[in-house]
């Protein structure tokens, strides 16, 4: 048990470490001296604006942008104001969008997986096999374009449409999970214990539900990491395309307009989110796989 806690603590330590590293990197970039770039309009003046907003750039100053944020001041070095309120609003938009997208992705994944397993030997199944190739072979924004075209054809407004955005975001992760799940189900169906279940008198459906599916879940969890990443990335495109002012859009404009403060905060938040998600998945895995659980809870030899 103690070993588990130690590992968790060690992983969580990455969060403040990332915050400091990102801060140091961003503060020490050789910013371009350009007349229309406000950071360095003249060396001394520009540099001091940067330092006034975000601290002097030493490792102990990493908390300065966060302090500014918490006290309600703007993080912007050049242009528009960016306060904690803007931040939380953007995060809220993204989280709600992401949650809907995740839900849709899981629904689509299960439907796809069950269809694929059910239709495996029939002709319709062959058509289904082409779907993943099509999905992964299309860049996300093209999917968005297709969705937009459909919306126009069906006379539905697509600008600001959260539903469409979530649907577009859900396609690739959903297909990915669906493929992983159905592959895992196929693999479990080929295992001897599946034959044992049939020999006990279960219907194939019962055997899949009671035996194959629970054993396929760990494979799903392994796929969850790339899926989470894909959803985060998809939010960039979806928010940009459908004009939703979420966190992704904040990051995009910060990168475009070269706003160091916002970039520091945004990158740290993203990285921390990834760390927390992967921790969560590790814990979930222990919950689901009895062998991993025994291994993790073993006392140190």
């Amino acid at each position, binding site marked *: 048990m103690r070993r588990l806690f130690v590992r968790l603590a060690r992983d969580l330590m990455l969060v403040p470490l990332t915050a400091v590293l990102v801060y140091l990197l961003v503060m020490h970039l050789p910013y371009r001296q350009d007349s229309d770039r406000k950071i360095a309009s003249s060396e001394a003046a520009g540099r001091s604006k940067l330092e006034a907003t975000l601290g002097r750039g030493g490792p102990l100053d990493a908390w300065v942008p966060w302090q500014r944020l918490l006290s309600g001041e703007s993080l912007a070095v050049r242009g528009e104001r960016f306060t904690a309120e803007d931040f939380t609003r953007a995060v809220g938009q993204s989280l709600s969008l992401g949650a809907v997208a995740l839900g849709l992705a899981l629904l689509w994944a299960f439907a796809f997986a069950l269809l694929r397993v059910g239709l495996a030997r029939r002709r319709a199944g062959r058509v289904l096999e082409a779907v993943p190739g099509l999905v992964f*072979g299309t*860049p996300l924004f093209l999917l968005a374009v297709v969705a937009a075209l459909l919306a126009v054809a069906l006379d539905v407004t697509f600008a600001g449409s959260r539903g469409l955005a979530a649907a577009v975001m859900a396609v690739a992760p959903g297909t990915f999970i669906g493929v992983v799940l159905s592959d895992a189900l196929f693999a479990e169906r080929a295992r001897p214990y599946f034959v044992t279940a049939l020999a006990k008198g279960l219907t194939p459906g019962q055997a899949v539900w009671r035996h194959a599916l629970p054993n396929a879940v760990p494979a799903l969890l392994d796929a969850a990491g790339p899926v989470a*990443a894909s959803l985060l990335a998809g939010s960039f495109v979806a928010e940009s395309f459908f004009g939703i002012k979420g966190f992704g859009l904040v990051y*995009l404009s910060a990168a*475009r307009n*070269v706003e160091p403060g916002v*970039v520091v905060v945004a990158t740290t938040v993203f990285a921390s989110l*990834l760390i927390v998600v992967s921790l969560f998945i590790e814990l979930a895995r222990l919950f689901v796989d009895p062998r991993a659980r025994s291994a993790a809870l073993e006392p140190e030899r």
Partner: protein
Amino acid sequence: MNLRAKVGGAVLVVLLVGSATSALWTRVGGVPDCVFGLDPLFPYETVCSQTLGGLWRSLALGLLGGAGACALALVLALVSRAGGGVVDAFVEKGAELFFSIPDVLVLISLAFVARAVQGGESVSLPWMAASLVAIGWAAPTRMVQNRLRSLDRLDFVTAARALGATEWRVLTRHLLPFAWDYVFAIFLLRVPAIILTESTISYLGFGLPLSEPSLGKYIGDHWRLLTGEDWLDVAPAWLLLVLVVVSFHWVGNGLLERAKKVSP
């Protein structure tokens, strides 16, 4: 190799040769001659030259990025195998960490750095290729490491060690020959992924310049035309993108299957 792989290979050869010689056949006798006319967003070039130029730029980025990433992956995997224990674990953890960060995020960060340091609204082709290598090395490294590890467990390798072969000899004489095919197949499969990621990043505004776009950048800027009467200005680019991606997939998968058959 199966039929799909052969078809894919043929298409790729045609595309590669066609894009390389495109300069020749979009200008006949010095006069630009294109069915679709001039590029609406950049009227100094024709749709044809932008599309074909986009094709070769996308291919160049994909091949350079893929080759760079896979070469780096191979080196890292070999080093970690030769170094053993700690080095192996370190490389593996590093690749895993990197793998979990979304590509788009890394590319945007790199674009931010480029803008902060260089200024300008777009990145150059070499910088884009380098960024693509930076995001592309993690997955192949993990795959090659796993491959080397599973090859390592085969009996003939253990036999070689029992006969007194040095680690270096085992690596070069026994493991590497089985790894080449695999690495090449992975490289071919990486290329479409890189081209697609690049097109996404271009769409988001961090790609190549408007005057010399990649296929992705071109589509990303012109997609609105699809709803109007100028839709033919975008369609060829989209078609080419799909062809490139599907062909690389087919050839890559065909080679991967063959590489896997040679040893388990």
